[in-house]
């Protein structure tokens, strides 16, 4: 057996269903060995999107996503996708081909020091030097990526290692990592402190982040919140921890969040941060929040605790396990008055400025769309104004909300939706992007068609890089620089070129019919939604 055969066998042993990748000479032995198994080999159109597709796959399947690229430019093209996964703690195993071991360090054709280049964006990386190490390293890579705080792991495999003979293949059953033992169970003393603090509190609030979803603890969070009548807000990555319409859910916090969610957090006397990093977009002034508030910080990563906000009660462990422990305990408190207050905050929302009615109102559009979506729909938002509108107006029922929160990588939605489709063949999947972010990943329409991984795509089309323009409007008094998207193609014709149906929605007059048609048509289908270019900036 060759090293490359062993790599393919390792993926089989891990139960991998699909790899997203792009070949090149240095990874050809691996792709050749992949011909002898049933794992899908999905050819993306640029390597960055292989990582995004693996990311979408991982978030829907709950298993590590796998992406593969060749040495040099193939590997460096992966970096943005790896950094995106790292920022949102998404488990990926990234496999790169490398030049011959004997040539390493001599700057030969398509050589890049990829393990060095990704050092700050990976949980761990390996450069394989001996063919015998392949089974152990693959086993460790999948284990590290998908335990503790999830994240990407990169394996760089020189071509001569892929072509070397491995006499005996045995995939290890267990990992033996002397230096990596993530904490699962929360400390009993700390759990008791949490319960006591909740019993004493008058105005508690749970702020749930993406960690709750990564731990698969949505159900546990909802049960805990309902059992004890504790209100919940979420960060952007936490959208979907609870149905939007749950009476105890009070929206997304942060500078792009709901005013009543921020007010709830600021007025609370006990803040329970769960699986959230307390980063600047969610909590811009952590010192203010903590001034009069007891902070409980629950996270699987001890380094997150105390990084941006000094907690009164730290609690390290897997969130699902911690909720199971918390559910056993009784909290003696009545928060109904506080919930009433929060409901008055919620009712006290200033009316939103409406755009010109010659165009589609994106917020109203998203509200109506999401009411019509399947209960378990996977909604993938890109980055930009489309993302802000999606966060603000998409109504999650039982589905998932995917977006690039930490890194804010434009072009994420289409490849991530394609990856999500590979993980969920029967669910409704809608990717929502702007005309800027669409053009960053529109080459993946071909991937979608070739591999029969169709999704529904909505393009909010205003001819500008809207969120940057909004920033320039606010910061540079309307001096707009490099945000005009003139020269963009006609998306209907483009869709036709790929053999994809496209619906154009020009204004609100027939929007319900247009949405119904969009949802009725079998995917792939694109909806080109015309947005007032002056909305928000006049």
């Amino acid at each position: 057996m060759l090293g490359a055969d062993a790599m393919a066998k390792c993926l089989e042993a891990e139960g991998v269903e699909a790899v997203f990748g792009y070949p090149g000479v240095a990874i050809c032995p691996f792709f050749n060995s992949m011909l002898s198994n049933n794992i899908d080999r999905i050819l993306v159109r640029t390597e960055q999107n292989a990582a995004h597709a693996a990311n979408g796959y991982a978030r829907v399947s709950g298993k590590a996503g796998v992406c593969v690229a060749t040495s040099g430019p193939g590997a460096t093209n992966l970096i943005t996708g790896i950094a995106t996964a790292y920022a949102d703690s998404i488990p990926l195993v990234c496999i790169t081909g490398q030049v011959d071991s004997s040539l390493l360090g001599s700057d030969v054709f398509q050589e890049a020091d990829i393990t060095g280049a990704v050092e700050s964006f990976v949980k761990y990386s390996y450069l394989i030097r001996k063919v015998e190490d392949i089974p152990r390293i693959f086993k460790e890579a999948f284990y590290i990526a998908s335990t503790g705080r999830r994240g990407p792991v990169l394996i760089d495999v020189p071509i001569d290692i892929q072509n070397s003979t491995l006499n005996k293949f045995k995939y290890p059953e267990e990992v033996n990592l002397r230096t990596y033992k993530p904490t699962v169970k929360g400390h009993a003393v700390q759990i008791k402190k949490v319960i006591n603090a909740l019993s004493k509190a008058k105005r508690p609030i749970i702020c749930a982040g993406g960690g709750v979803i990564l731990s698969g603890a949505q159900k546990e969070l909802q049960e805990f919140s309902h059992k004890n009548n504790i209100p919940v807000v979420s960060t952007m990555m936490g959208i979907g921890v609870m149905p939007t319409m749950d009476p105890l859910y009070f929206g997304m916090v942060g500078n792009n969040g709901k005013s009543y969610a921020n007010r709830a957090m600021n007025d609370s006397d006990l803040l329970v941060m769960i699986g959230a990093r307390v980063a600047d977009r969610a909590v811009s002034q952590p010192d203010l929040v903590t001034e009069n508030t007891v902070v409980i910080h629950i996270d699987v990563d001890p380094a997150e605790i105390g990084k941006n906000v000094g907690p009164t009660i730290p609690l390290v462990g897997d969130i699902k396990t911690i909720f199971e422990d918390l559910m056993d305990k009784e909290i003696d408190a009545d928060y109904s008055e506080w919930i009433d207050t929060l409901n008055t905050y919620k009712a006290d929302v200033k009316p939103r400025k409406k755009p010109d009615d010659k165009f589609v109102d994106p917020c109203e559009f998203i509200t109506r769309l999401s009411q019509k979506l399947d209960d378990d729909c996977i909604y993938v938002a890109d980055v930009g104004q489309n993302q802000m509108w999606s966060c603000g107006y998409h109504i999650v029922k039982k589905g998932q909300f995917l977006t690039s929160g930490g890194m804010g990588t434009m072009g994420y939605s289409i490849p991530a939706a394609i990856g999500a489709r590979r993980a969920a063949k029967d669910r409704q999947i809608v990717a929502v992007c702007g005309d800027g972010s669409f053009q960053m990943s529109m080459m993946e329409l071909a991937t979608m068609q070739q591999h029969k991984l169709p999704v529904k795509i909505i393009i909010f089309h205003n001819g500008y890089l809207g969120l940057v323009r909004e920033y320039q409007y606010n910061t540079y008094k309307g001096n707009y620089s490099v945000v005009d998207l003139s020269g963009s193609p006609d998306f209907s014709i483009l869709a036709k070129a790929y053999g994809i149906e496209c619906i154009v929605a020009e204004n609100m007059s027939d929007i319900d019919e247009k949405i119904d048609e969009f949802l009725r048509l079998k995917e792939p289908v694109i909806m080109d939604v015309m947005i007032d270019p002056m909305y928000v900036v006049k």
Partner: protein
Amino acid sequence: MNKKVFQLIVDNTSGVLSRISGLFSRRGYNIESITAGVTMDPKFTRITIVTSGDDDILEQIEKQVAKLIDVRSIVELTPENSVYRELLMVKVKADATQRVEISTVVDIFRANIIDVAVDSLIIELIGNQPKIDAFLSMLEGYEIFETARTGIAGLSRGTENISYKENKVDKQL
């Protein structure tokens, strides 16, 4: 700003030092000195890092370093419960008369002259940092050509604070 000495036991893998120093540089932590050497068990390397920052930063340093997959343990070597040593080599200009004066200072500090040339000396001194600093200040009146300092190595005192026993690793795991 406080100063702390951390002792790390890490997997002796290629690139481990760059992973640790890379973490310090990208998060903007200071390294005043870093020394590394293999332990009795060749699977592990002992690294001693002297760093400084306010308490929040020092706490983050400890947690972020602990998080690296290659790091088996990180403990603080506190001044009360530890001993630190550093090696200094200094090349100083010395003609025949200066040689005698300098050797008096060398004797007081229990340093050694390890090389003599017509117009210069190389002195070695092992000690903690205040001792080395004091010695260098005694040489201020002479012309120093070069100094080489190793950065500190340290161990905790007694047997109570041994986080890792070098010849008993496998039993502990």
